[in-house]
């Protein structure tokens, strides 16, 4: 695939605060790429640099091989779907969608055809004469997408476009966006802090933290092979345990030596071990490789979520079997349930569920949304 955007050594600071730190990224044609990270990680700034609304302090932006640092937004082949849509309140749906075409002096008849086709694609035929202020959030979202796509950009930038929608609508729009991207073949650069959204929609995910790219890969790569504790924790739930790599395929943690599938670490190298909560099997204590005490159980619908104290370190385990609070249980792990990561600066910061509570998690999530 051809490179459509290249970011080379981009740095950007606002008021002395570094937002992007020597970041480089290639984006390929026809790709659905997601910039994922917590608020303040630099993902939106990256998007704004591609859109032309910010210029990097240092580094270069290339569009199809051509340096575009100094090209203003209105001359770039890029359109944006803004976070809160930014529809023009003084124009109706038709005129909002036609806005870019009118600016380019496209003949009236052609504008009409294109706008109608686009409204049909986002399932808003018959809404052309409506005021945008009279539309629901989901409908406004569709108008914003139509308004951007009607210009047939090479790249569509989406800045947390689903953040303001409720869960059900959000799921529908995720499917819808994915479909639109497939049908149009336009490169989508999508920004979100919602890891589930990123996993379900993207061809490629770029996980960012503190102005740096932590990992680039397909959703399955990122989920199954996180490179460090930050990525493992940010994407899904992870138990991250201190371990020692004894040799290839042999790792020791929690006082037990496990078989695993990882190689290429030094002998007796300290590592981070990632265990996904759904990969843990609960067995009778005498059959377990390691044992622990269940300290809490939360019913989540499809599964139970248990917090289990294993020698002072609390694991999260998701199981469809019934578990009881206070029970003493055994744990077994298949080799492919174990993922080994090199130590990083994020080691020890994540992956222990000692202070875990659903309520806190939700609190911090909604805070993040409020900030965004």
């Amino acid at each position, binding site marked *: 695939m051809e490179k459509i955007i290249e970011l080379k050594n981009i740095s950007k600071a606002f008021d002395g605060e570094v937002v992007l730190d020597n970041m480089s990224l290639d984006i390929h044609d026809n790709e659905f790429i997601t910039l994922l990270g917590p608020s303040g990680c630099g993902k939106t700034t990256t998007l704004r640099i591609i*859109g032309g609304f910010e210029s990097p302090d240092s580094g270069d932006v290339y569009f199809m091989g051509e340096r575009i640092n100094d090209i203003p937004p209105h001359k770039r082949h890029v359109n944006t779907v803004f976070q809160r849509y930014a529809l023009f309140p003084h124009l109706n749906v038709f005129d909002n969608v036609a806005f870019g075409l009118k600016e380019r002096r496209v003949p009236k008849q052609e504008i009409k055809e294109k706008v109608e086709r686009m409204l049909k694609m986002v399932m808003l035929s018959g809404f052309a004469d409506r005021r945008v202020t009279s539309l629901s959030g989901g409908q406004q979202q569709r108008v914003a997408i139509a308004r951007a796509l009607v210009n047939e950009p090479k790249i569509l930038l989406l800045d947390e476009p689903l953040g303001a929608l409720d869960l059900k609508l959000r799921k529908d729009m995720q499917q819808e966006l994915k479909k639109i991207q497939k049908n149009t073949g336009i490169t989508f650069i999508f920004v979100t802090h919602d890891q589930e959204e990123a996993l379900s929609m993207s061809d490629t995910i770029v996980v960012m933290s503190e102005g740096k790219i932590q990992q680039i890969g397909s959703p399955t790569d990122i989920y199954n092979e996180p490179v460090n504790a930050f990525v493992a924790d940010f994407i899904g739930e992870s138990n991250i345990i201190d371990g020692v790599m004894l040799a290839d395929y042999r790792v020791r943690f929690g006082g037990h030596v496990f078989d695993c599938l990882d190689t290429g670490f030094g002998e007796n190298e300290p590592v981070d071990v990632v265990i996904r909560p759904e990969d843990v099997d609960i067995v009778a204590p005498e059959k377990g490789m390691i044992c622990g005490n269940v300290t809490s159980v939360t019913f989540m619908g499809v599964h139970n979520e248990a917090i289990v104290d294993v020698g002072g370190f609390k694991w999260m385990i998701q199981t469809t079997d019934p578990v009881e609070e206070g029970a003493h249980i055994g744990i077994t792990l298949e080799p492919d349930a174990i993922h080994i990561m090199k130590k990083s600066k994020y080691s020890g910061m994540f992956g222990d569920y000692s202070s875990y509570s659903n309520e806190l998690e939700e609190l911090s999530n909604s805070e993040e949304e409020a900030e965004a």
Partner: protein
Amino acid sequence: MKSSGASRTPVTYRAALAPYSVWSVLFVLVPLIFVAFYAFTDNDFAFTTENITRFFTAKSNIVGEDGSTTEVRTYVLIFMRSLKLAVISTLVCLFMGYPMAYIMARAKEKTQKTMMTLIMIPMWMNFLIRTYAWMTILQDTGIINGLLGKIGLGPLHVIGTETAVILGMVYDYFPYMVLPIYSILAKMDLKLLEAARDLGCGSLSVLRRVILPLSMPGVISGVTMVLIPSISTFYISQKLGNGKFFLIGDAIEGQYIANNLHFAAAIAFILMVILLAAMALLKYVTARFVYGGD
């Protein structure tokens, strides 16, 4: 707010509203009824349209500079003169005020506050005193001509000309143009401007297609708040126009002082009707051609 029917309005809400309703009735509605009543009655309070017809038909002779006399419709002429001066000062206020409001809205917060204060300070002074101040400034022997004389220019004869009257109106009513436009521009969503640029607009296009149409409500209330007082002013024209430019406000005042209340009311009534019609038209036109798309 949607009207949800008076029966469902909470009692406390209505109670809180009561003083304002009483105020509005007493000091807005009742006086308006009186104006209309006086306009359509004669001295014995019998119904008549004579006052209204008099406005349109009263004639007088004007002696030109060459000594020739022309017959004119007195009050129509006065009205047109008032309208002309008011429209000119409104336009001057608009073309000076809009850029200023825009610059203010985009300035740093501290600069915004300073500019706001500078605009407000003259309003702390009584408007009669301000007008007197302009008299002394503009006089043939005033400060401006004094300065001009020192550098060997002038004298500039301003006092007693239309320019002086317009200057007075612009000076007095300028803040009323800037403030409503500023308040609209200051709270405009900057993302909309980014969206316009994103969709291919250069700076001029952003101004024409997004900023101007979105600031129309501010422009309309600015125009209203300048046009109406300047069309009905009488003091400025007397002091800065040396009484040479008899305006519709002067006519009302003159009739009132002459104890000719019914005709004064008729002039006021006609002025009101014309202004209301003009405002309605302005609103309709902007709604139709600015908000209805291109």
